């Protein structure tokens, strides 16, 4: 009941907030909604399948360029949106397949390499991507005669997509597939002995996560209306990774909280303007040392202490150490 109450309060807040904000504030919360989608995808990979992906930023980039380029040829937004998600899903599958054949941390390295490769292609293939100049003048979509050109409209559009994708993820995690994901996280060895093909499910979690990254990019392009390769380098992937961790990896609402911290806090706390990233990085390190399960893990722990429960909060799992 408590949880439902908190959810309802958050929903009311998300709907009423933009009416009290200036256009830049609305832009920021739209960015929050868009990046949350990418973080939800990464949470599937990291929080549920226990694999570090450093390519989520690259998938956001691929999604953004797909939509921008397809819309230039006159393709309707809805189709371009789906194409972006599908392309990233397929690329994620192809990329994850070799890496997940090998145990240990190879997915991290392969995705690191992939992000750099994507950046090079976006920068060098000028005939397609416009090179370092990027693509500008990306139009915001018109849906059933409802234009999302105004910031407020685009925010509600992004929020709507976020809610739909959240429900889909929620459903996925309740389905037998999702149960298998959780089984992987809790105890890979037991999952394997129950007949779950762990490698296939890990790959699936990574591919779906990548697909969500693509969908996030598909909204990113019309939100910022100007995209260039530099936006989708390693730093975006790192930021998304930190978002998931800070919010609480493996918690359903972790990405929402993490994205909130990463997107809105730097703008709202003007105190440490220049040193924000240093403080942020230091806080992440402190958090990893004392509470690797993130902000939601911390809240969980405090609530449990308050209720005098003595079950430890779920810690961040590693794929190798627990097998």
């Amino acid at each position, binding site marked *: 009941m408590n949880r439902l109450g908190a959810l309802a309060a958050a929903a009311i807040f998300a709907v009423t907030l933009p009416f009290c904000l200036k256009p830049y504030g609305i832009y920021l919360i739209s960015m929050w909604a868009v990046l949350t989608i990418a973080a939800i995808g990464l949470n599937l990979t990291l929080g549920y399948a*226990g694999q*570090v992906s450093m390519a989520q930023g690259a998938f956001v980039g691929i999604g953004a360029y797909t939509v921008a380029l397809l819309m230039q040829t006159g393709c309707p937004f809805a189709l371009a949106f789906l194409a972006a998600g599908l392309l990233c899903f397929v690329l994620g599958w192809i990329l994850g397949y*070799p890496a997940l054949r*090998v145990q240990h941390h190879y997915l991290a*390295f392969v995705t690191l390499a992939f992000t750099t490769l994507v950046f090079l292609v976006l920068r060098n293939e000028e005939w397609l991507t416009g090179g370092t100049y990027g693509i500008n003048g990306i139009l915001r979509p018109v849906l059933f005669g409802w234009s999302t050109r105004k910031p407020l409209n685009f925010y509600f559009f992004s929020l709507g997509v976020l809610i739909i994708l959240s429900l889909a993820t929620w459903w996925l995690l309740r389905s037998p597939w999702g149960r298998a994901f959780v089984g992987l996280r809790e105890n890979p060895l037991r999952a394997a002995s129950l007949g779950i093909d762990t490698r296939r499910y890990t790959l699936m979690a990574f591919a779906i996560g990548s697909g969500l990254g693509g969908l996030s990019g598909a909204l990113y392009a019309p939100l910022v209306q100007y995209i260039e390769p530099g936006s989708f380098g390693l730093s975006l992937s790192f930021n998304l990774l930190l978002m998931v961790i800070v919010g609480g990896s493996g918690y359903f609402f972790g990405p929402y909280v993490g994205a909130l911290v990463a997107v809105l806090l730097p703008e709202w706390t003007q105190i440490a303007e220049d040193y924000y990233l240093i403080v942020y990085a230091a806080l992440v390190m402190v958090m990893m040392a004392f509470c690797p399960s993130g902000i939601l893990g911390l809240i969980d722990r405090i609530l449990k202490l308050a209720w005098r429960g003595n079950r430890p909060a779920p810690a961040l799992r590693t794929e190798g*150490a627990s097998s």
Partner: protein
Amino acid sequence: MSSFVQLLVSGLATGAIYALIAVGFTLLWQTSQTINFAQGEFVMLPAFFILAGMNWGAPFWLAVLIGVVISIVVLGFLFKIIVVDPMLRYGVLPLVISTIAFSLLLKESAKDFYSSQAQPFPALVPATDIDVFGAAISTQSLTVLAVAILAVTALHFLLSKTRLGRSMQATAQNPTLARILGIPVQRMVLYTFLINAVLVAIASILISPIYLAKFTNGETLGLAAFTAAIIGGFNQVRGAILGGVILGVLDNLSAAYVSSQYRGAFPLLILIAVILLRPQGLLGRVEERTV
């Protein structure tokens, strides 16, 4: 042909620097299962320590000495005590995240507290070319090669010929057994962190005159170190050396003969190929999984 020799030598020099970085990286992995994602930033930073020392009026050699000492304290000792030790009990993944955050911290600190502009860095020797069979070989490349070979030889001697080095190897291979044999395992692990700090400081001194000291240098250098380590074999010091040299030579040759725009892409393609075909690396052995 002469241009080929020139490219080869400068490629070997770059590769030798990559090898130093990759060796430190694999040492940390072997003794403490630390995948140091801040390794690139570790190479970027000592140059700034040295520049800061020179700004205080110290002559170059003294600044180098100060820089190396600060590197050992900060990137070796403090890194081990403050960042790695509290994380070890959680396993590999949280430590990976923590080193990523640490790399961000180091990068932003260099930018905010020193400068966001690329800083010129004094070279060890004046840049002149020597004529070797018609190929103009730069003295800088030769110095880099000489220093790197010296460092690697010294390390090899330390690891395989001294009691201390053999204790460190034992620690890497089987910490439990090493402890039973009376080897102070924690101290040995600490020594590898200190050695890594020295290696990155040397790499920093060698590479900064070429790339200039810039806070973003760590990104490419870190990637090069991971790639070299994986190509050569994650669990072998020899592998890291081979991987580094292959990477450096390939980098220079592909930039000259195939495409300079995609020079960064070839090592990555090789990385993916190695992971596909020979995941344990060229010289690596298949790692036994601990249960």
